């Protein structure tokens, strides 16, 4: 039989940023195997900046090559790398004063996992990754004695946009009330929560009544009907954003189940066109066979009644409910 599971997802966004007149050449340089600093009076700033960090005066772009060698002036050892670090084995992060620069660059030093190899004053040298994208992650550092000579083919166009795929991994159990709601769906039941203050029934419950500011528990839970009334619908024309899996238009509706006070939103209809939908139409849930039901898309925030538990919603043929009687629920 299908089972409940912990919530485990990664929320990702690809950020693209314009690079501007100073960072652009810096990232272009990294792609092409060179590190550039910005002149600021008689100093050279690396990482380069568009402004004087002391006076905040704007600096005209004036870039000069620094490194590839440098000296570690501060460091810390990362015993437990995160998924966002440049290495998946322990490594050092360091302040590196590159030869020819007057400020320090923060970057990663790979010593093959050996913290004993790190020290203040040690010499390091830049190494460039085989695949470079015009990002500060195109480069890393190693102890100077370990550095290999590299031949880097310069790219063609200057880097004017840099892309950074950010990601947050979320991993936690289903909250108790979400677990009971999800188990209900696997059992072919819709579980709601009845407010102990107002008596209103919410589906799915959130574990509280936000109108009365009271927490709700298993004692407040009720099984509700799987027959209800369409209170809103629309046709979705999928925009091809990052992560989109839908390609064709489809209908999404909200259904107010009998005996409840809050419609369940986001119910997808695949076998009816938008022209066949009506506010007030009576619909019944036709469940999938028990062994075919899945609630893997239900997490602690998203997921009401997913398509993975129902085969379709079917008009009951009863007379429509007048829309005027539903106006408190048109969401």
């Amino acid at each position: 039989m299908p089972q409940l599971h912990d919530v485990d997802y990664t929320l990702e966004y690809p950020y693209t940023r314009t690079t501007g007149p100073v960072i652009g050449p810096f990232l272009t340089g990294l792609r092409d195997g060179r590190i550039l600093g910005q002149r600021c009076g008689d100093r050279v700033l690396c990482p380069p900046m568009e402004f004087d960090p002391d006076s905040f005066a704007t600096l005209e772009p004036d870039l000069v090559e620094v490194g590839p060698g440098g000296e570690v002036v501060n460091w810390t050892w990362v015993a437990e790398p995160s998924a966002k670090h440049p290495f998946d084995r322990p490594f050092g992060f360091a302040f590196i004063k590159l030869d020819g620069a007057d400020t320090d660059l923060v970057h990663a030093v790979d010593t093959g996992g050996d913290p004993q190899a790190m020290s203040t004053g040690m010499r390091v040298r830049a190494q460039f990754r085989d695949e470079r994208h015009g990002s500060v992650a195109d480069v890393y550092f190693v102890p100077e004695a370990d550095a290999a000579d590299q031949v880097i083919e310069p790219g063609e166009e200057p880097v004017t946009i840099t892309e950074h795929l950010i990601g947050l991994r979320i991993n936690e159990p289903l909250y108790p009330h979400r677990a009971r709601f999800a188990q209900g769906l696997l059992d072919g039941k819709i579980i709601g929560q009845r407010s102990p203050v107002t008596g209103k029934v919410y589906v799915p419950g959130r574990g509280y009544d936000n109108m009365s500011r009271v927490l709700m528990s298993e004692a407040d839970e009720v099984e509700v009907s799987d027959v209800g009334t369409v209170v809103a619908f629309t046709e979705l024309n999928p925009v091809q954003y990052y992560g989109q899996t839908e390609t064709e238009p489809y209908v999404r509706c909200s259904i107010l189940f009998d005996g409840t006070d809050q419609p369940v939103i986001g119910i997808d209809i695949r076998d009816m066109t938008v022209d066949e939908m009506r506010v007030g139409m009576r619909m019944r849930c036709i469940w999938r066979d028990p062994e075919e039901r899945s609630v893997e898309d239900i997490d602690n925030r998203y997921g009401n009644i997913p398509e993975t538990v129902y085969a379709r919603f079917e008009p009951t043929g009863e007379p429509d409910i007048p829309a005027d009687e539903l106006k408190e629920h048109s969401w």
Partner: protein
Amino acid sequence: MVSLAEDVAIVAFEQTPSHAHFNDSEPAMIMPCVNSVIEQVGMDRHDIDFTIAGSCDYLSGMPFAFVMNIDAVGAWPPVYESHVEMDGAWALFEGFVRLQSGDIDTVLVSGSGKCSPGSYREGFSLQTDPYVHAPIGLDPRTQAGFQAQALIAAGKATERDFAEVVARSHANAKNNPYAQLSGDLSVDELLAEPYVQQPLRRLDCPPTSDGAAAMVIARADKARELCDNPVWIRAIDHRIDSHHPTLRDLTDSPSVRIAADRVGLHDGPVDIAELTVTYSPEEIILRDALGLNGETAVNPSGGPLTGSPFMAVGLTRVIELARAIRNGDGGRGVAHASSGPALQQNLLCVLEGDN
């Protein structure tokens, strides 16, 4: 020191315990705190003039998670409401400033965060420079490691000093029912632990925590009407150092020094300091920058090393100080909140009792 247009006091406060994992939603975590402070002042929810919360969507793992948190503050029918993507201490700051305009009397402030479902190291690396720091995952623990190493290199502290901060914090937390960690630790045993971020060990770093805090603040006349023992907010200030750690002297905190001057910290006795010591070396920097001597009790609650629900932890420092003043443990003190890596941003709040 800035003179105030309006005297403002804390009239009610509440916090959750620092949970290793709170297995329900963030609104469900905040709601009992909000209900408690409203009950303490005996007001109808909708008679509170302004509502403001601090939280972080990157921690919650959902865009606009802060909107869901409004469920917890009783926002229907609609209320006058705002949010900061900062610790609740900054929500308090905005509420305090809002009261200075003199046209409203009361503000409901909250702060909340759940660190346990995600990785704060990954999430908070995204608040660093997006071109040169975030793409290499430069996380707050790494920056704390740099700060610790800088202190050692400058001869301002040793790893034993860090361990002593940890041991004292955990011992203080034995009296704090909200603390997540507490107990008697031996400095030598702490120093025998392995590094997680050399030169930092596990207990030099904060535990993973979930928690929330809330308070009601009010203008003077209203404050006296609402409670018998208001705790006065004498001053608040917030200052920022560069987000480039390599452009800072990591062994000092110029922003704390400026803020301490602006709030007139030493214009009166500093009996208690509740400091956002997220990593043990920060206490050494903060004591120095605040000019504290042996007469000030530092983190009698145990501080964030014993429970660190990000986005509530700074507001909780204010609450711990207010509670200590109400309990008569001191007459005047300072609460400190921090944001950004390695004490990059600092907020100071001076509280004083009614006497």
